[in-house]
């Protein structure tokens, strides 16, 4: 009979090999389409794992155990759970409130004007840095950009945002700004924007005056 710990280890090996195969398909074979079919393998493996796991657990629970009437949750455990959960929730709200981006508007892509009147000058960088945004894209977008002959020579980290439409700008002094686009409309007249879709709901654009911009 397979024990749960053994099953978990086997499944871990399966997941590790999944990651290895995915990376192999992307980096060595350069085959993005095939990597999408891996989902079938993943689902099949997971279903098998869950079925066996449920069977094993059902057998283990069915075995005779000494019934022990004891409190389900002690006061200390409950307090610990409350403290841990409140830590997560409070940090989420603190980060959300204190780092909330302010509204903005762009003037012909040369200046970024904040609601308080502060204007940031956005001048283009050296040609070598024009490809900085490439690294922040996903693999598909990177490939599409490379096919268009765009170089990939610098590094910029990928931004995770689940907030409403947000614009990220990086200036020459590596200062980064994030702005909420909810209350404003981005005017794109006069400049051509090179955009790549990142997923079904987000996309990324290269704006000539700034180093990097992410629209989501």
């Amino acid at each position, binding site marked *: 009979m397979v024990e*749960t*710990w*053994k099953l*978990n*280890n086997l*499944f*871990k*090996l399966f*997941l*590790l*090999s*999944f*990651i*290895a195969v*995915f*990376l192999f398909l*992307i*980096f060595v074979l350069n085959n*993005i389409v095939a*990597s*999408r079919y*891996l*989902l079938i393998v*993943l*689902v099949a493996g*997971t279903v098998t*794992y*869950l079925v066996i*796991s449920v069977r094993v*657990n059902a057998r*283990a*629970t069915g075995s005779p*155990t*000494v019934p*022990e009437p*004891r409190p389900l949750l002690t006061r200390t455990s409950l307090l610990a759970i409350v403290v841990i959960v409140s830590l997560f929730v409070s940090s989420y709200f603190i980060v959300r409130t204190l780092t909330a981006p302010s509204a903005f508007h762009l003037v012909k892509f040369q200046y970024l004007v904040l609601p308080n009147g502060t204007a940031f000058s956005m001048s283009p960088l050296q040609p070598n840095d024009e490809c900085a945004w490439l*690294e922040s894209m*996903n*693999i*598909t977008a990177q490939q599409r950009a490379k096919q268009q002959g765009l170089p990939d020579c610098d*590094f910029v*980290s*990928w931004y*995770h945002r689940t907030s409403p439409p947000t614009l990220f700008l990086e200036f020459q002094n590596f200062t980064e700004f994030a702005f909420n686009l909810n209350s404003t409309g981005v005017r794109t007249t006069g400049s051509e924007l090179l955009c790549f879709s*990142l*997923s079904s709901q987000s996309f990324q654009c290269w704006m000539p005056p700034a180093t990097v911009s992410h629209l989501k």
Partner: protein
Amino acid sequence: MDNTSASRSKVESTVRFYNLLSVVFFVLAVISLSMLTLYLITDFIVLALGAMDIGTILNAVSRMISLRNIQDVNERQRKGVTTVKFFHIVSYACFVIAAIVFGIALNGLATDYAVMGLELTGCGTILRAVSRDIQLEGV
């Protein structure tokens, strides 16, 4: 006698709870990996590896606890040897993939891959530490 049975019951329920939690975290890792295949964003590998790490730690600790609960020394040693073998195989797999992703990270200066490498190294190291503990207790 009552104390022993109460303690055994606690151990069993802890092991069951940790096993269940580890299954939950492995399923979360699967969800993240399915997002990876859909959107091809490598950050999902980082998330999946994080979830897998938690699952692995819980699984290893629950195994350690259940081994301690075995009264028969011979059986404990026998099961300990099998467990250590298994844990070593998984830790080697972790180290192998960690080496690959570290290679990608250094080659492309990609911090995402460096994080993956660290997570995998962490998983391998923890498993080795747990198996060392099992070895020492089995002696």
